């Protein structure tokens, strides 16, 4: 690690338990990780190992049962509801496996959503949302509703939405889980491109060829980190050059 630069994410003993009445599910059982700015990380692990739980905690969609989480130098566990909403709005961009677009809204309006809650004025909002859609190659689909878009296009809208507020971290929970392999590769190329422009990305996947686009792989097993610094090699030549320099 580069001693001088502070990690963008630090977790210490992060735990998440679900009380299910008779039994307690231990989804995370003390996770310590550090992630540097500009890293592209893949989180892997068997189903039920706690990957999504970890992502939701990092994304401030959920709160841990125990442990510390410091985001950009801010201890998140001390924040109230409004602060968490502000962090989700300003610091985090989320991409979900199931896209989670507003079904009745146009692509443009979906992308505007974070800007609405950031209090950006309508005209600027439009411009920035349109620019974000351009960036993911959907400049000509702005007025389409989700049911008029393919899976890959939907996910691009979701990515544009996650980026429109220039978040510090892009979180993607199995972003290609619902896509065919050709479309998945397109999305991965987009991620590599974003990463090359300095975007910090944390991505959950259970597919090795998807994970191979990342610079570092964190593997969870049974709610604990099993391997912290693995690398899959060699990534496809076309994107290798773009992502090579990122791992500290």
């Amino acid at each position: 690690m580069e001693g001088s630069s502070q990690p963008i994410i630090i977790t210490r003993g992060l735990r998440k338990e679900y009380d299910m009445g008779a039994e307690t599910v231990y989804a995370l059982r003390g996770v310590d990780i550090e992630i540097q700015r500009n890293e592209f990380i893949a989180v892997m692990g068997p189903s039920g190992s706690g990957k999504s739980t970890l992502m939701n905690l990092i994304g401030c969609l959920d709160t841990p049962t125990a442990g510390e989480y410091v985001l950009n130098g801010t201890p998140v566990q001390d924040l109230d509801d409004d602060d968490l909403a502000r962090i989700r709005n300003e610091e985090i961009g989320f991409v979900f496996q199931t896209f989670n677009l507003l079904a009745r809204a146009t692509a443009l309006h979906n992308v505007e959503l974070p800007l609405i809650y950031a209090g950006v004025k309508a005209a600027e909002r439009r411009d920035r949302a349109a620019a974000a859609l351009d960036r993911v190659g959907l400049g000509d689909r702005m007025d389409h509703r989700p049911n008029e878009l393919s899976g890959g296009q939907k996910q691009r809208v979701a990515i544009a939405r996650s980026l429109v507020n220039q978040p510090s971290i892009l979180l993607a929970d199995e972003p290609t889980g619902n896509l065919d392999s050709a479309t998945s590769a397109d999305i991965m190329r987009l991620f590599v491109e974003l990463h090359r422009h300095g975007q910090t990305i944390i991505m959950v996947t259970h597919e090795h060829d998807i994970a191979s686009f990342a610079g570092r792989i964190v593997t969870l097993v049974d709610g604990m980190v099993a391997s912290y610094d693995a690398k899959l090699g060699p990534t496809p030549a076309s994107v290798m050059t773009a992502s090579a320099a990122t791992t500290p």
Partner: protein
Amino acid sequence: MSIAEALRVALSQIWAHKLKSLFSLIGVVIGITFLIAVITVVEGMNRYVQEDFAGSLFGVNSFSIVQRPTVQTGNYSAEELRRLARNRDVDLDDVEAVRRAVPDARYIAWRNASRMDEVWYGERRRRNIRVIGGSEQYQAIQGWEIDRGRGLTPLDQQRALKVAVIGPAIAEKLFPNGAALGKRIRLQAHRFEVVGVFERKGGLFGNAWDAAVLVPYETFNQTLSTKRDRVREISVKANNQREMLAAMDAVEEALRIRRGLRPGEENDFHFQTSSGLLSAWETINNILLAAVPGLVSVSLVVGGIVIMNIMLVSVTQRTREIGVRKAMGARQRDIMLQFLAESSIVSLVGAALGIGLGLGLGKLVERLSPLPASIPPWALAMAIGLGLLVGLSSGIYPARRASRLNPIDALRYE
């Protein structure tokens, strides 16, 4: 999120669920329709009573002396009614006393009147008429206008001629081809020559006057009266309110002396004024207006519950949407605002429809009756205020539920 943004989101949501939205505002529509319709009618009746009814019965700045109230307004106790029934009949000696007491009055008139009677012309008959024996100024004090022929003259009065001015409803029935003047009609055993026909007064209360026959007081006294020199009503019209009150005092004193009442003894006659009638009307009016809030609030509460339940269903159906919005940075108050905007718009639209329907009902009443439709601005403000109140209060619980959802639970909701 700004309020404008919340309203925009709410509007698109309402538009996307037109049918559901329409259904949810029915309760409010009913409540507000009712509110506006009742206020329109009550206000209309109010105006009618003040401007037309009271004026046409007594005229402005007028009072009359009667044995007991001729207009039943319902605000006398049984006790009072018994006392009034014991009052002495009014007669021509009372008329003399009144004339001497207020020599400067603009008009003084007196009348006797039959109970419901019938009038004949040949084989034709009109039932349910009223014969009035009126003094010289009676027609003037009543403000009755002549349509054809002439009114009663001083000569008719002095000589107690058997002449009659008939109401238009009678003229129509007895003389379908219009030629009423100069014809001789029969009232009980007496024949009268028709010298004039009154203009139609129409209206809710004017209809009775349209079926009246006016004959000279003295003629009535000699022919149809059941008791000699009896007077049903002495009417005095002053030039203004102040003179009217002074005249009432003078008349009261004169009548008490003439009737030999001792100090402390109650009057054995009754004053009737348009303001007295109006205060009686006000009592009715207040009862009506007091009943409205109860009925309206019941329908508004029901309307509010309907909106609340539909909003709760809507919150459940839109749990994922709420999750998405929260994941994108919506704060609790943003979600709250969105749902409150939605319930308020629905309720306000309901209130607007209710105002429209209520005014429509009022107009219908205006068409079908002589009552003018009159809606005071405060009623509109109240309707809108109530709409907003129902919207906010029915939205607050669903909105809180929505706003407090944990983002991840909302996103995961199936």
